[in-house]
């Protein structure tokens, strides 16, 4: 056979055959385990200490003040101890999206037989999102001609602000690790997380763009509809735990059922699973992610409500999206996966925040997995799905939960 000028002999480079992929991923998992090992070790060593350190900081500073000879007034400590958890929440909302975006980039890449960012930060592009953030800060802020300048400016603020409130009553581990322990935590989170859609609507209207307007209207319709099944999905948990406080729910879910299954609501027969699935679907819809990302629908509306946004304003929408995703996952972890409760009492040497963040990240992974697997629904199918499927099943589930609880109490 003739030999062409560009001939390359030998068999096909088997870099992406299933066998090669399997080998590569096994190796990656091994490396990941090696990396996680010291982290988990540190957590075990520290126990619940990181938070005790904060608590003890006040005692320590008081003592130092005593040595120096200054007396710190008691109200200073009250203010500081009230401000510390709030600062923690504030920091978390800023840091969580940075991590989650990177995580999503990496997971999406590996789902799609790519590698994702590999350069910035040297190790698997860990600093990619930080670089992106800096870039977004430095970008020009463009306001389109004819836009409603006030609405255009306020929209990202309105979208992102409620997220800060929503994190306040979340127990980041054992019930004691709640920034603001509220008796009506679920209600507050549900109420405030519904507010951000006003921001999307403002962006849609204020941008003076038809794509934005369509996106904003879609977002509003979607959020109003999916709020209902989401709340309905939470009702069985509330009924079962008998409290609206999120800390109380974590307490209700610690322990084991018959010493075999963890006492998480997810494992409550039938009702738990239906609730969880409805909650998951409705949360994905609430956070505007594929298959329910109609509000931004990249292939139809170019970018939907944030078509006309750039720079930091756009980044705030982005931050809001990821903050709400983290919130939905944290709430899901608290309500269905027992929050800071360990898988088994024997594993309680791992601190509660490890379990909380582990479960939350698992939920985040579910979100990402679903996003990069499914196509987008159409707007009328979306509404039908909500009103004709999710809500009836949710209501049925509430009735079922009521019956179960009644039967047990008899």
């Amino acid at each position: 056979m003739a030999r062409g000028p560009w001939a390359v002999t030998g068999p096909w480079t088997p870099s992406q055959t299933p066998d090669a992929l399997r080998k590569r991923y096994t190796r990656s998992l091994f490396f990941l385990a090696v990396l996680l090992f010291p982290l988990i070790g540190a957590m075990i060593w520290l126990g619940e200490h990181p938070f005790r350190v904060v608590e003890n900081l006040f005692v320590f500073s008081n003592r130092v003040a005593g040595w120096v000879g200054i007396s710190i007034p008691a109200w200073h400590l009250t203010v500081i101890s009230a401000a510390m958890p709030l600062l923690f929440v504030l920091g978390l909302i800023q840091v969580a999206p940075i991590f989650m975006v990177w995580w999503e980039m990496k997971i999406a890449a590996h789902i799609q037989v790519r590698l994702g960012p590999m350069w910035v930060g040297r190790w698997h592009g860990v600093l990619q999102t930080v670089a992106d953030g800096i870039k977004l800060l430095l970008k020009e802020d463009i306001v389109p001609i004819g836009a409603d300048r006030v609405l255009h400016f306020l929209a990202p603020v309105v979208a992102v602000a409620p997220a800060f409130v929503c994190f306040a009553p979340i127990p980041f581990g054992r019930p004691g690790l709640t920034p603001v322990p509220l008796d009506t935590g679920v209600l507050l989170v549900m109420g405030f997380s519904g507010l951000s859609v006003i921001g999307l609507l403002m962006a849609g209207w204020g941008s003076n763009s038809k794509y934005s307007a369509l996106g904003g209207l879609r977002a509003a319709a979607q959020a109003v509809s999916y709020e209902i099944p989401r709340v309905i999905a939470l009702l069985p948990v509330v009924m079962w735990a008998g409290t609206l406080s999120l800390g109380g729910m974590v307490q209700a879910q610690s322990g084991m059922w018959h010493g075999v299954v963890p006492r998480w609501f997810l494992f409550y027969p039938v009702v738990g699973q239906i609730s969880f699935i409805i909650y998951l679907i409705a949360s994905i819809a609430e956070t505007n992610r594929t298959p329910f990302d109609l509000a931004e629908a990249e292939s139809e509306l170019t970018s939907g409500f944030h078509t006309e946004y750039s720079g930091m304003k756009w980044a705030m929408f982005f931050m809001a999206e990821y903050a709400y995703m983290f919130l939905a996952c944290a709430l899901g972890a608290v309500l269905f996966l027992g929050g800071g409760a360990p898988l088994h009492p024997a594993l309680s040497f791992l601190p509660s925040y490890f379990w909380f963040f582990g479960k939350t990240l698992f939920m985040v992974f579910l979100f990402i997995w679903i996003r990069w697997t499914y196509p987008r629904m159409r707007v009328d199918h979306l509404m039908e799905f909500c009103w004709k499927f999710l809500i009836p099943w949710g209501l049925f589930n509430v009735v079922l939960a009521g019956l179960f609880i009644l039967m047990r109490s008899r």
Partner: protein
Amino acid sequence: MSNDKNPISTVDQIPQTTPSFKGGVEPVGRVNETADSLINGPCFETKMERISDHEMLLNMGPQHPSTHGVLRVVLQLDGEVVTKAVPDLGYLHRGVEKLAEHRNYSQFIILTDRDDYLCAMLNNWAYCLAVEKLMKVEIPGRADYLRVISGELNRIASHLLFIGTFGIDIGAFTPFLYAFGREREMILDLFEQLCGARITYNYVRIGGVSNDLPDGWVEKAKSFIVHMRECLKEYDDLLSYNPIFMDRTKGVGVLSKEKAIAYGITGPNLRASGVNLDLRLQAPYGVYSKFSFDPVVRTNGDCWDRYMVRRDEIAQSCQILDQALGDLPAGDIMGKVPKANLRPPVGESYAQLEGARGWLGVYLVSDGTANPYRLHVRAPSFVNLAVLQETLTGWKVADVVAILGSIDIVLGEVDR
């Protein structure tokens, strides 16, 4: 003006564009007040007076992520429902047919690559068929086989890109990176080894092909076919039978058999509407008569069928490739054609073949000189696109993208 050399010296001297949505009638671009053309108006926003108050005009494209290039469609929307759609073409017009009159016969092959850049092999082939018909050249058997092999591989590559981009249109991003970033890359690697190029091949020449197969190429192609068949199952799991995908595409944008024939639709779009018409089967050119392969026909004519026809055609092409690679004859790859100073006799010829998007025809008029007197390309995308206006009406914005995607146009070929 403070500075005569530079008339615009301060920021506020920059002429401000008047926003057109305020009802201003300032002409922007062409002025054409013919009754029908919503699209050719000075600024179509001003025509909003003519549509009812609960409707709006949405300008989709030419810069839009899913118009597959630079197609512009002006949609008249009632809420999200399309009441009228007017496509606007010509943003990628390069005058290829006119350029042909200033190139000699072999030089024009490289321009055919640019017509339908997703299956350039078939474009080369269609043009060469027309010239060969005019010159009555005998093509050696091996060259004919190589044309079939490269052509079918390119058809697979083109359909793979369709599967990927159609997935994106529907909102599924991942299949794109499977089809486009993995399988299609393999084909491009094969082509790179075959002719040195990955997109614009210039491989099929008048009288034969440019290069023979390098060593080990056949085995590599065979291993690709095995891989491709496995991947089809993967696409089925991920996309074809995905409930959301089927919801979005089944029954959407139905193109009836009669309408498809009336509009002159060809290729996969026609076969999705239930017409079994494939030039490779009904009017075989080259060596297609030597292969046996199953026709791919679906009956509903909706977006899902158009998708499935292409998905099945990948399997069909694999079937042809199996046979072609199996009994590839030895011999020359070029027929007896003068290398320089190619002057076909006076006359005209029309040759067509089954392209990835339909009948790809080339009409050629020769006046006996070294350049064609006139050349016309029957571009399947262009003809298929005509049905868009009627099909879109009554569907939602999301379906517009699905229908447009399922018709599978390539703007390079539409505008030429």
